[in-house]
């Protein structure tokens, strides 16, 4: 190759052009990495700063020294929070609410998605569109009428819906069910029609087709929907803020913000520790199931 370039005059310019092309590539690559590092700094600064602060004592936080460095690292903030009963109660509330929401949501949406995608009935196409529209209705539009409705239930039926953590289990599915149904319709629709016809000929009932064929085949979609569902219910902030007030009924995000921020006395070490612990469950799930997480994220727009 090199020989040819030396001996034949025609080969030389060609080689030079190739060289410049790969040099362009190399520069493009360097610039890409440069900007990626810049953006990574921008995107990761807050969580890293959270972590830095969580390792500091109150004295160090209020001292006039470099805030970006930990001089006397301590785990005291973690120990304080994790031994506080109230913090553990927040965690427990959050966990129970999230798990129940996920269970209820997946039961409702997988079964409904199967019926909408495969069995069809009068009005099922309209309902599928309706499901998508519901998904676009934000919680900021619904919390006031829901608040009033729950107060009414409270007054007339005597069921104490206000200021109870389990009320959130009723509320959160309004956020999760529409989206999960929507992406499950997408996943089910991508399963070839012949598969359920084969199952029909093999003698499977509709329920057996769902449990023995569709659920196993669409498992990646179900995992993605489950992750989405968990993340949404874990992160939800408006509903618990509006519907729960007693300290023992709060979930983690609201609990941290309302109990650790007292008037003007901000204990930033503990707040950051609490925030980090509150962010941990979704982050851990994300770390282990990133591909499913991303599949669920893109499914809404690319599948339907």
């Amino acid at each position, binding site marked *: 190759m090199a020989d040819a370039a030396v001996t034949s005059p025609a080969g030389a310019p060609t080689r030079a052009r190739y060289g410049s092309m790969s040099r362009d590539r190399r520069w493009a690559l360097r610039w890409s990495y440069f*900007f*990626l590092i810049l953006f990574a700094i921008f*995107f*990761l600064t*807050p*969580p890293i*700063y*959270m972590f830095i602060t969580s390792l500091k004592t109150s004295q160090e936080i209020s001292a006039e020294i*470099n*805030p*970006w460095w930990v001089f006397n690292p301590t785990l005291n903030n973690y120990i304080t929070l994790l031994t506080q009963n109230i913090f553990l109660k927040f965690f427990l509330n959050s966990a129970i609410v999230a798990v129940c929401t996920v269970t209820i949501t997946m039961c*409702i949406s997988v079964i*409904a998605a199967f*019926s909408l995608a495969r*069995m069809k009935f009068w009005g099922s196409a309209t309902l599928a*569109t309706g*499901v*998508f*529209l*519901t998904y*676009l*209705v934000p*919680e*900021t*539009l619904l919390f*006031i*009428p*829901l*608040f*009033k*409705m729950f107060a009414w239930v409270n007054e007339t039926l005597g069921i104490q819906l206000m200021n109870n953590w389990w009320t959130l289990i*009723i509320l959160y*599915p*309004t956020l999760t*069910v*529409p989206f999960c*149904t929507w992406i499950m319709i997408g996943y089910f629709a991508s399963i070839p029609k012949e598969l359920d016809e084969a199952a029909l000929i093999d003698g499977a009932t*509709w329920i057996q087709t769902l449990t023995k064929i569709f659920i196993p085949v669409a498992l990646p979609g179900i995992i993605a929907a489950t992750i989405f569902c968990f993340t949404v219910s*874990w*992160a939800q*902030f*408006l509903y618990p803020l509006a519907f729960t007030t007693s300290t023992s009924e709060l979930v983690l*995000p*609201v609990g*941290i*913000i309302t109990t650790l921020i007292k008037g003007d006395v901000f204990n*930033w070490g503990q707040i*950051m520790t609490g*925030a980090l612990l*509150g*962010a941990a469950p*979704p*982050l851990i799930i*994300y770390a282990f199931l*990133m591909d499913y*997480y*991303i599949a669920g*994220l893109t499914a809404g*727009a*690319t599948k339907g």
Partner: protein
Amino acid sequence: MADITVRSASIGSPDSRSSLHKLMQRKSTIAFLMALPLILLITVLVAYPAGYAVYLAMLNKSMTKFVWFKNFDFLFTRDTFWMVVYQSCLFAITAVIFKALIGFIVAHFVHNIPSKGQRKWRGMLLVPWVIPPAMSTLAWLWLFDPSYSAFNWLLQPFGLGPIPWLGETGWARFSVILVNVWVGAPFFMIMYLAALKSVPEQLYEAAAIDGATWWQRIWYVTLPMMRNIIAITALFSTIVTFANFDIVRVLTKGDPLNTTHLFGTWAFRLGIESNDIPLGSAVSLFMVPILAVAAVFILRDITKRGSEV
């Protein structure tokens, strides 16, 4: 021979035809029953409250009298209301534009690097989207702290600052938008990256052979191919940004002087905290027109996508 047996058997057929009819009916009945929990949930907890909000917005403060559009008339006379309208639009438009821009640029850079490193970078860059927004906004609140701001400490050596990140209207608006962009840009990045990967490599090769520069390749190949997904993502993000609550609530609570309120946070302030449910309801209803327009366009694009495939 076959004829005879068929004929004898088909005597019973009118009867059995009705049984098939029953069977088909049973199938759609089962299907309906399977979708029933979903239908109930949507009607009782989404559709009904949405309609109820309209009714609530037309009651007087103590909710004893139906006052038609008095609440809206009242809102139109308040400066705060117009401020919220202005801020909501400014917030949503600016944030969506920057999210889309940053998302597109970052997606391009990630797409550029060798594919074995892409997973790692993608994973790292999506972190802001994964953290519950209320929690990450706390970190921003601390970074913007008036006395201990870590940003101001960095700016100090350059003779800049201290910047009143959350104390002055202009800076406070900038800050809430910045945080929203920080949370939302990774989502755009992921969507665009997925779209970039779906553009066939041959198109770029064909464009390169036709002598297109990298800029022309983006303009004539990438953007047209991604147009639909860009539209869907942007419209979807417009809805979410417009209806945002967490960030403003944690960062400024609408301060200074209600200048950073969005419809959602102001409705919460009025409806829940000041106990004026009808007025809060009226405020939140102002989100509907924009949501409706965006929803119509999204639906159109999604059905278009569906028919393309």
